[in-house]
């Protein structure tokens, strides 16, 4: 019992205390005595890093949980809660995976492990929208320092424009991609297509590299800005391409090439749009009234 006391979660502490004090209490609690310890044992093992053996235990645990409760319907809160079932370490690991794409590593299989989340894409897009607006504002301030004739204004509408654009990109482009891949599903034998959420996840996490890039674009050296922009685009597009390659590889060459180049092109458009919006056109100073 001492081990269970150390390892018990909060919600089981009262139960195990009560059971310790009244061992002869109603017999229905006898079987419950096993399940808290059983849950504790499995959860401790699968809380650490991922590996082959631990995946088996994790799948055992998920199988056990699925026996206990059915899949909640889409009108319940629990359904949406399943999309936010990530820990801090997992989110950081996924961000790291999107920053450093490697040719063999498929982001979906390796990092997402078929458990996509909506936390990452949502908050990365929100951060990117706000950072774009803030740095656009800062660019204007710095430009005004150099050239006092430029009139400064907070330009708050930039936040709205940036936010709407980025969110539309992260939702509509994966939707089109997913629909296209499903349509072509008949050609492929080996690998099934990704679910919609996994595609959204890949796109969302791939946008993370733009956040430091937009901050670095404050440095007013043009060739350095182009360098950072190119680097960010390369990293982010590489992450997308390496993820999509195993799925598209079995398709005809033409379709594969067109799809991948469309993906990269849209991504480049987004990068250019971010840069253009960040520069903005500073308003000329208002003429003095006579």
């Amino acid at each position, binding site marked *: 019992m001492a081990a269970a006391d150390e390892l018990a979660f909060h919600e089981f502490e009262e139960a195990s205390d*009560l059971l310790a*004090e*009244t*061992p*002869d*209490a*109603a017999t229905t609690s006898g079987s419950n005595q096993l399940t808290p310890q059983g849950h504790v044992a499995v959860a401790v093992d699968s809380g650490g890093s991922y590996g082959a053996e631990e995946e088996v235990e994790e799948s055992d645990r998920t199988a056990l949980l699925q026996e206990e409760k059915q899949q909640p319907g889409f009108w319940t*809160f629990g359904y*949406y*809660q399943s*999309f*936010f*079932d*990530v*820990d*801090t*370490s997992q*989110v950081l690991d996924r961000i790291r995976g999107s920053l450093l794409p490697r040719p063999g590593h498929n982001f979906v299989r390796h990092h997402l492990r078929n458990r996509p989340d909506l*936390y990452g894409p949502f*908050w990365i897009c*929100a*951060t990117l929208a*706000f950072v774009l607006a*803030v740095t656009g*504002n800062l660019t204007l301030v710095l430009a005004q320092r150099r050239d006092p004739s430029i009139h*400064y*204004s*907070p*330009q*708050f*509408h930039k936040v709205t424009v940036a936010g709407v654009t980025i969110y539309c990109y992260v939702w509509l482009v994966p939707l089109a991609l997913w629909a296209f891949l499903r349509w072509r599903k008949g050609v492929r034998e080996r690998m099934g297509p990704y679910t919609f959420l996994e595609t959204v996840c890949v796109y969302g996490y791939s946008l993370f590299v733009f956040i430091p890039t937009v901050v670095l674009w404050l440095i007013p050296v043009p060739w350095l800005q182009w360098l950072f922009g190119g680097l960010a685009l390369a990293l982010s597009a590489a992450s997308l391409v390496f993820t999509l390659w195993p799925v598209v590889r079995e398709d005809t060459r033409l379709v594969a090439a067109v799809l991948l180049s469309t993906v990269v092109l849209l991504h480049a458009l987004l990068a250019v749009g971010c840069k253009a919006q960040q520069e903005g056109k500073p308003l000329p100073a*208002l003429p003095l009234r006579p």
Partner: protein
Amino acid sequence: MAEAAESSGDPGTTSPRPLFAGLSDISISQDIPVEGEITIPMRSHIREFDSSTLNESVQNTIMRDLKAVGKKFMHVLYPRKSNTLLRDWDLWGPLILCVTLALMLQRSSIDSEKDGGPQFAEVFVIVWFGAVTITLNSKLLGGNISFFQSLCVLGYCILPLTVAMLVCRLVLLAEPGPINFVVRFFVVIVMFAWSIVASTAFLADSQPPNRKALAIYPVFLFYFVISWMILTFTP
């Protein structure tokens, strides 16, 4: 209950006296009727108290609510881990703070529409929709705080930033210059840190331990955006 009483009276059990030991001494036979009155002495007092709030003067009612709001302001200004903000939540404080902040962020110049500063509606929407989004986020991550409690905490923790806005407006009455900006920057940074510390003190305990950073980051972003709006305000 009767079975438990009989079984715990068995001889030969060597366990320490369990919680319900005294039950073995009670024998409930069917002859003794069990009846009586259950009255709690305090209850009639409370009932009196409740009905009397209908008859009290309007000033008493308003002062009581204002005192509750003021008490919560004090809790925000000196954040300790306490439950007051969570237990008796109310949304008056956040509303007062949000309206004050939005009014102060209004620009007084004639051509304010062309300049594109945040309008009253934009500030209002950002504060309330931001707070709702953060609350939904923390609930989806598995936090056990109720919706309105979280809105209450986030709204009350805007108080340091409202104070910063007041100070900035006063400082902007002086002549503009780099010292002016440095003072405003310093004040906003300090108040931003204060807001984050206050809201973390109240909200952090309600999150599962391995997701605390995930729940706190949106709060950081929220107060950062409000601080940015305050810092870039020019009359």
